[in-house]
C-alpha cells in the first residue's frame, strides 16, 4: 500500500467515524440531556415541593425537616432548569468534545499509519536493493532487518540465500582445486609407476647377479617400497571414488566407530556422546569411517608425547544444527597453529616430518564431505584442543545425486 492509498484509507476512516459519531450523538448523546431536564421531571419536582409545603403546614413539628427537603428539591429543580436552558449548547459541546477526541485518535492513527508506511517503504527499498545485489551475485549481503514480520522473514531469507551462495562458491572452488590436485596426483602416479617398476626389476637382477650385497639391496628395496607406497597414495587420491550413500543414523554411526576403533590408537581414548534424537543421514559408511580415521589419526599424532605413546581423548558428538546433521570430532590436544589453519585442507599440506605423511588426509576427508553435499570445518582450536565438524544434509535423494556432486 503506497502513501496515497494510506491517506485515502485514513480519510475513509475519518468519514466513517464522523458519520458514526453523528449518529451516536443524535441518538444517544443529546437525548439523555432532554431526559434529565424533561418538563415532566420538573413538574414532578414542583409537585414534590408543593407537597412538602403542605406537609409543613399540617405537621408543624417537623416543618424544619420539610423545609430542608424543600430546599434540596428546589436546588435540584434550579439546576435542572439551568441544564435545560443550556441543553442544546451542552449537546453541541459534547459533540465537539467527542469529535475532538475522535479527531485526535484518527490523527494519531493516521500519523502512525503514515510513519509505518514510510518505514515499510524504506524496508522494501532495502529488500529490493538486496535482491538486486543477490541477483548480481553479491554474496556478502547483510540487510540487518530483524523484525518478526513478513519483510523481516524475507530479509532473513535473502541473507540466508546469500550465505548459501557464498558457501556453494567456496565449495565449488574447493572442488575445482581438488580436481586439479587429483589430476596432478594421477599424472605423478602414472609418471612414477614406470621407472619404479623398472627400478624394481633392475634390483631383482642385481640381487641375482651380486648376492654378496644383500644389505645394500635390502636398503634399496625398502626405499623403493616407500616410493611405491607414495605412488599408491597419489593414485588413491587421484581415483577417489564417488560416495555410495546408504541410509543411517549419524549418532549410531559415531558410536559404532568409537566402539570398533577403541583400541586402534594406543593411549587415545575414543568417546561417543549419544545423540539426543535420531539423526537420519544418507552416507557412505566406508568413506565416513575413512574421514573419522583420518581425524583420529591426526589427533593421535597431536597428542603423542615425545617420551611415549599418545595420551588424549577424542570425543564424537552427533547433533542437529540448522537443519543439518553434525558430527563433531574434538580432541584435547595442543590445537592447530594459526599459520597452519589457512592451508589446513589443501592437499600436500602437512606439519609432519618428510616421509611421515603426504598431507592428503584432510584434503581427502573434505572432498568426501563435499561429495556428500556436506562440509568439513575446523570449528575451534586452542591450547585445550581442536574440534572439527562434519556437516551432512539430512539425506541425499539417491546415489546419482552424490555422483553428480562428486563429478
Amino acid at each position, binding site marked *: 500500500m503506497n502513501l496515497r492509498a494510506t491517506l485515502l484509507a485514513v480519510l475513509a476512516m475519518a468519514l466513517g467515524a464522523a458519520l458514526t459519531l453523528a449518529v451516536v450523538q443524535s441518538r444517544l448523546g443529546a437525548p439523555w440531556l432532554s431526559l434529565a431536564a424533561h418538563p415532566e421531571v420538573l413538574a414532578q419536582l414542583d409537585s414534590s415541593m408543593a407537597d412538602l409545603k403542605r406537609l409543613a403546614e399540617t405537621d408543624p413539628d417537623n416543618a424544619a425537616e420539610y423545609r430542608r427537603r424543600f430546599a434540596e428539591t428546589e436546588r435540584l429543580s434550579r439546576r435542572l432548569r439551568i441544564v435545560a*436552558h443550556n441543553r442544546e*449548547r451542552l449537546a453541541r459541546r459534547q459533540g465537539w468534545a467527542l469529535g475532538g477526541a475522535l479527531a485526535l485518535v484518527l490523527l494519531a492513527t493516521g500519523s502512525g499509519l503514515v510513519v509505518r508506511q514510510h518505514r515499510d517503504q524504506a524496508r522494501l527499498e532495502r529488500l529490493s536493493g538486496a535482491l538486486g545485489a543477490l541477483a548480481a551475485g553479491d554474496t556478502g549481503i547483510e540487510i540487518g532487518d530483524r523484525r518478526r514480520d513478513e519483510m523481516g522473514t524475507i530479509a532473513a531469507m535473502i541473507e540466508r540465500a546469500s550465505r548459501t551462495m557464498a558457501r556453494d562458491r567456496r565449495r565449488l572452488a574447493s572442488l575445482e582445486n581438488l580436481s586439479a590436485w587429483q589430476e596432478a596426483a594421477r599424472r605423478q602416479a602414472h609418471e612414477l609407476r614406470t621407472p619404479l617398476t623398472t627400478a624394481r626389476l633392475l634390483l631383482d637382477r642385481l640381487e641375482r647377479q651380486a648376492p654378496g650385497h644383500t644389505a645394500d639391496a635390502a636398503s634399496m628395496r625398502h626405499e623403493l617400497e616407500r616410493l611405491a607406497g607414495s605412488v599408491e597414495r597419489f593414485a588413491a587420491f587421484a581415483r577417489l571414488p564417488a560416495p555410495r550413500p546408504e541410509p543411517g543414523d549419524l549418532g549410531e554411526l559415531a558410536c559404532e566407530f568409537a566402539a570398533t576403533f577403541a583400541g586402534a590408537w594406543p593411549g587415545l581414548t575414543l568417546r561417543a556422546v549419544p545423540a539426543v534424537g535420531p539423526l537420519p543421514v544418507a552416507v557412505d559408511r566406508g568413506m565416513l569411517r575413512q574421514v573419522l580415521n583420518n581425524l583420529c589419526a591426526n589427533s593421535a599424532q597431536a597428542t603423542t608425547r615425545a617420551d611415549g605413546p599418545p595420551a588424549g581423548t577424542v570425543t564424537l558428538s552427533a547433533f542437529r544444527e540448522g537443519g543439518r546433521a553434525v558430527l563433531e570430532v574434538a580432541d584435547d590436544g595442543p590445537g592447530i597453529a594459526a599459520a597452519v589453519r589457512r592451508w589446513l585442507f589443501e592437499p600436500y599440506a602437512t606439519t609432519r616430518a618428510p616421509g611421515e605423511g603426504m598431507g592428503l588426509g584432510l584434503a581427502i576427508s573434505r572432498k568426501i564431505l563435499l561429495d556428500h553435499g556436506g562440509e568439513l570445518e575446523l570449528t575451534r582450536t586452542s591450547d585445550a584442543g581442536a574440534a572439527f565438524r562434519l556437516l551432512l544434509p539430512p539425506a541425499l535423494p539417491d546415489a546419482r545425486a552424490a555422483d553428480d556432486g562428486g563429478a
Partner: protein
Amino acid sequence: MRRAARAPLLTLALLVLGSAASAADDAQSAGGGSEAPALERRGARLRLAGLPPLIAAEEVREHLETGLTTTFVLEATARDGNGRKAEGGARAAVRYELWDEVYLVSTIGADGITMRRRLESFEQLLEWWRGLALTLLEAPDLDHSGRWEVRLALSLVPFSQSEQDDAQRWLTRSLEGGGSPATEELAEAAEGGPAPLRGLLDVLAVTSIARRSLRRWEWRLTSAPGGR
C-alpha cells in the same frame, strides 16, 4: 467622591454583562408593545423612571416563578446633538422565594446605588417594576442643554452567576459519576475519576453552562433636559 470613582467600574461591569447577554441567539429587536420606558434627565444624569409591564407577559412571568434569579440588564447609549456618545447601564434581579412565596428584588444603577426589597405578591412586583427608577448613565461630556437620542436595551437573563457556578459544579460531578444530593459531599471530598477525564468534563461543563438572555427588548427614545 467614592461613589463617583466607583461608577465607571460599575458601568464597565454592567456593560460586560450586557455584552454577554446580547450574544444571545434568540435576542429580539422589538419594542415592548405600545408602551415605552420613561426616562428622566437631571443635568448629566440619565435615569430610568419606569418600565412597561413586560414582566406580566406570560413567557416572563412563568420564568420568574421558577425559583431562579431572573436578571434584567439595562443598557443605555445616549448621543447628543453633536454626535457625542455615552454608555451606561443598570441591573435588576428578581428571585421568587418558593417556600415563602415572596419576590426578593435587588437593583443596582450606574451610580452604584443598590436597593433590596421583599415584595409579597406579583401585584406589588408589577407596581415596583412600573415605577423602577435607576440611574442609567452619567455623561458630563454630553451637551446637557440639548436633546439626547437614547437607545435602551433590556435583556432577560434567566439565572444568576452563583446559580450558574453551582450548576456547573453539579453537572461536572454528575458527569464524573456522582451528583446525587446524598453523594455530592463525598464526591466533592474524593474528587474521584481520572484527572484528564475530570479536566475534560470540567471544561465541557464550564464552557457549556452559560448565561444567555432569553429575551431582549430595544427602544429608541428621546430625552429632553429636565423632563421625560
